[in-house]
């Protein structure tokens, strides 16, 4: 995975496979603690304590539980390479919370990447799941929420031209970028 936005897409796909109806993705930048914290919180089926302990290891999972594989192990590796770590909290039938910490100043911290494209692909790809993105940076909070967008669109699906236009508009406002290319939102590296 070349950037954090790709990891986020991958982990949020796990949440969908765990039948979550809501996935909250939270990015917090805390320069005073030299910390970038990524949280992915879902209300899916969760996992057992045994599964939770094994889930960061790449080779213990997929045979009986297809919904978790290399993805979390790769995120944990990316966090550790940037001087941080990754942990998983989960309650069966209630949901899962993944927390990945990175040192903001670390030279091996991956770029954030294109969060707009990740959110667009998640929102369009899963009509039964809602996704929220919360970015806390410099004392401000910016929020993107597909529940609001679906409510404003009514019956029009998100993958229709109208739906895509509305989605891109919202994402542009939240991420501070304007859609400039028909093939997706482009933003500068590390623009969080």
């Amino acid at each position: 995975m070349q950037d954090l936005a790709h990891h986020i897409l991958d982990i949020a796909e796990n949440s969908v496979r765990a039948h979550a109806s809501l996935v909250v993705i939270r990015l917090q930048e805390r320069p005073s603690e030299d910390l970038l914290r990524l949280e992915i919180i879902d209300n899916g089926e969760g996992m057992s304590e045994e599964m939770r302990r094994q889930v960061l290891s790449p080779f213990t999972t997929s045979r009986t539980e297809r919904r978790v594989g290399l993805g979390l192990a790769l995120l944990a590796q990316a966090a550790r390479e940037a001087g941080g770590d990754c942990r998983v909290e989960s309650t069966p039938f209630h949901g899962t919370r993944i927390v990945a910490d990175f040192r903001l100043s670390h030279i091996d911290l991956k770029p954030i990447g294109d969060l707009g494209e990740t959110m667009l692909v998640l929102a369009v790809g899963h009509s039964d799941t809602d996704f929220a993105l919360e970015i806390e940076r410099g004392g401000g909070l910016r929020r993107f929420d597909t529940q609001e967008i679906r409510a404003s669109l009514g019956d029009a699906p998100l993958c229709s031209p109208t739906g895509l236009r509305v989605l891109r508009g919202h994402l542009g406002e939240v991420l501070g970028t304007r859609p400039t290319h028909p093939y997706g939102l482009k933003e500068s590296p590390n623009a969080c």
Partner: protein
Amino acid sequence: MARLSVQSLNALRDQLQAERAGREGKCRATVIVHMGTCGISAGARQVMTALLGALEERGIADVAVSSSGCAGMCSREPMATVQRPGEAPVKYADLDEKKIVRVLDEHVIGGSIVKEYALAMGSERAG
């Protein structure tokens, strides 16, 4: 065969309902982009964005796009499945941004399978 769980039955039901909706002609076609860890690493997100951009450019509203998990052939990712009403689903492999737009124009819209990129007809088992 692995023991069936409630989750795998639910997944199977969702898949069948989606396929039936496609076959019943509510949409011109359904395109499923496989978005497993393997697919994402190989460029599935870019493939899906290219597809959405092309749909938007062409003003097409009756093609359903969705994501699913790994199709089981990680070395051939990015992959996508095209399902047109009343026809067998077709799986495309080794896709990129240009190939998916060609699949959209020739298969989804035009109705003829792009044989160069097609891997197989049919769908993998759920669960």
